[in-house]
C-alpha cells in the first residue's frame, strides 16, 4: 500500500504495536517532519529515529503526502488516509514523516501549517555543491538524466520549466540547494522554536550528539547508544569537473553566507574542492 524504496524495518523488528490497524488511528496527528534536504542524510537520521520507542515512523520513511498535488486538489483533504500509514504503539509520543522534498516543494509549508501549526521541523543540510552532485549521481544511476553534470546544471532552468506549473523533482540540482530561502518560507509559518537544523556532516560523524539534540527538541528520552552508519551511499560514476565546481561556487557563495548568518553556523569547508 505504501510504496517506497527505503524499507527501514531492517533497523528494527516489526512489533505488534507497529502493526495496529488504521481503525485505532482516528485521532492521531503527525507532529514531526524531517523535511530535507534530499541527499542530506535524512535516511540515516530516520534510521536512528526508527529505533526510539517514543517515535513512530512508517517503515517506508517517505510518505510524500504534503507534496502530492492530488491530495490537495479537492475541497477537503483525506487525512485519515495519511494517518492510516502510522501505527503508533502505546509509548509513542512523536509521529514522524521523513520526506526530504518537503522543504523544497513550494506549497508544503502552508499545507502543513493548516494541518498542524504545532508541527516540529527537522532539517539536515549539506554543502549544496556536493548535494547537487550526489543528486545527479542518483538520477544517473536511476537512468533519469541523460545529460552530463555540467550540462545538467547549465540547462537546469529551461529543463525545469518543462514541468511547470510544478517544480521538477529530478533535475532541480541547483534549485534545491537554496536552503536559506526554503528555511525562511518555513519561518513565515512556524516560529524558530519549532525548527531544528542539523548539519549533515555532524549527523554523519557524531550521531550521538545530533540525536541528543533531536531528543531535547522533541521532548523525548535520550537515544540509546548508536554508532555512525552509512545508510544510503551510492557509488559515483565520475568526479566533479572543475567548471561545474566553479559554477556551483559562484551560484551558492552568498547563499552559504546567508545560511551562516541565519543559523549562526560556520560552513567552512563547504563549496571547497
Amino acid at each position, binding site marked *: 500500500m505504501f510504496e517506497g524504496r527505503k524499507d527501514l524495518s531492517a533497523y528494527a523488528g516489526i512489533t505488534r504495536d507497529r502493526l495496529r490497524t488504521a481503525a485505532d488511528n482516528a485521532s492521531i496527528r503527525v507532529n514531526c517532519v524531517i523535511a530535507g534536504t534530499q541527499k542530506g542524510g535524512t535516511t540515516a537520521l530516520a534510521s536512528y529515529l526508527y529505533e526510539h520507542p517514543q517515535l513512530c515512523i512508517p517503515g517506508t520513511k517517505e510518505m*510524500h503526502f504534503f507534496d502530492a498535488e492530488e491530495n490537495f486538489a479537492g475541497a477537503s483533504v483525506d487525512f485519515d488516509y495519511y494517518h492510516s500509514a502510522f501505527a503508533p504503539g502505546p509509548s509513542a509520543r512523536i509521529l514522524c514523516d521523513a520526506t526530504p522534498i518537503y522543504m523544497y516543494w513550494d506549497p508544503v509549508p502552508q499545507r502543513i*501549517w493548516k494541518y498542524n501549526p504545532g508541527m516540529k521541523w527537522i532539517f539536515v543540510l549539506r554543502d549544496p555543491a556536493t548535494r547537487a552532485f550526489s543528486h545527479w549521481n542518483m538520477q544517473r544511476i536511476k537512468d533519469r538524466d541523460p545529460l552530463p553534470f555540467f550540462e545538467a546544471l547549465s540547462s537546469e532552468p529551461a529543463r525545469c520549466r*518543462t514541468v511547470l506549473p510544478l517544480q521538477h523533482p529530478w533535475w532541480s540540482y541547483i534549485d534545491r540547494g537554496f536552503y536559506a*530561502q526554503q528555511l525562511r518560507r518555513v519561518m*513565515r509559518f512556524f516560529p524558530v522554536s519549532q525548527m531544528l537544523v542539523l548539519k549533515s556532516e555532524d549527523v554523519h560523524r557524531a550521531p550521538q550528539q545530533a540525536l541528543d539534540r533531536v531528543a531535547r527538541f522533541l521532548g523525548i528520552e535520550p537515544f540509546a547508544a548508536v554508532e555512525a552508519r552509512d545508510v544510503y551511499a551510492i557509488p559515483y560514476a565520475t568526479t566533479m569537473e572543475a567548471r561545474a565546481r566553479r559554477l556551483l561556487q559562484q551560484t551558492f557563495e552568498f547563499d552559504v553566507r*546567508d545560511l551562516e548568518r541565519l543559523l549562526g553556523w560556520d560552513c567552512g569547508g563547504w563549496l571547497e574542492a
Partner: protein
Amino acid sequence: MRFKACHGNFAPATLPAGRSVLEPPIVNAANDGAEVRIGVVVAGTQKGGTSALKVCMIEHPEIGMPQEVKEAHFFDTEENFAESPVDYATYHRMYERKPGVRVYGDATPVYMFWEPAPLRIWQYNSAMKLIVLLRNPGTRAYSHWNMEIKQGRETLSFEEAIRGEQDRCRGALPLQHRRWSYVARGMYSAQLRRIWRHFPREQVMVLKSEDFQADPAPALAQVAQWLGVGAFPNVAPRKIFALPYEGPMGRGARQFLHETFEIEIRRIERMLGWDCADWLSELRAS
C-alpha cells in the same frame, strides 16, 4: 495512488512527441478570444519607482493600461483564483480596447512579492514580459514604513516594526502580510528566482530604481525596444509618489538593516552583474 512514490510521473518520455525537453510547454490559458490580452506587467518592487514607470506607460499611445483602477491587483487577489477555471474577463474588463495599442500592461508592485503570483501569471500568459525595479532594500523598507504611518496603518516605530516583523506577519497567515512586510519585501533574490523559475530571463527586465529615477531615458528606450513599441513621448525625470518622511532613519534601525541586507545585496550583485556599492554605503553611513 495518493502517496507519490519517487515522482514516477516526471519521466521525460511523458512530453509530447517531437518536442525537445528544452522547450517550454505551450500555454494558452487566456487565448479565449478576449478583447485584450495583457502582455507586460510591472511586478515591483513596491516603493521602487513603479508609479513613475506606470505614468510613462499611460502616456504612451501604443501601451494600454487600466482605465479606472490605480493598480489591477488581479494576480494577488485570492478570490480570483478560488475557482477553476479562472475568470479572466474580470481582468480584461479593467481595460478599454484602443486602436493603435500594441501591448496592454499591468503595473501592480506586489506581484513580485506575492508567492503564488508568478505561477498565476504564467498560467495566464507564458509569454508575459515582466519589468522589475529594484531599490536599495533598506531605504525601500523605510519608505514603506513612512507610507504605512501616513496612512494610519502602523503604530510601531520603524525599528520595532522591522525587528518584530516575522512574528507580526504571522497574523496574516496563511497569506503574506501586505502592510508590515518591510524586510521580507526586500529579499529580492528569492523573488527573482521565483520569477525566473517560470519565465526565461529574456522575458524579465530588471532595472535599478535609483538609476531610473535619476535618468529614466535610457531605461525607457530599452523598454520601448523590448516591447516593440515606439519611443516614449516624455522621458524627463519626475517624482510621482514622494511622501515627506517622519524623520531620518535611526542608527539602530540602520544597523539592523545593514546586517539583514548585506549578504542579500551582495547576492543581487552576483545574480545580476550589478554594482550596488551605493546601497551598502547608504546603509553603513550613520
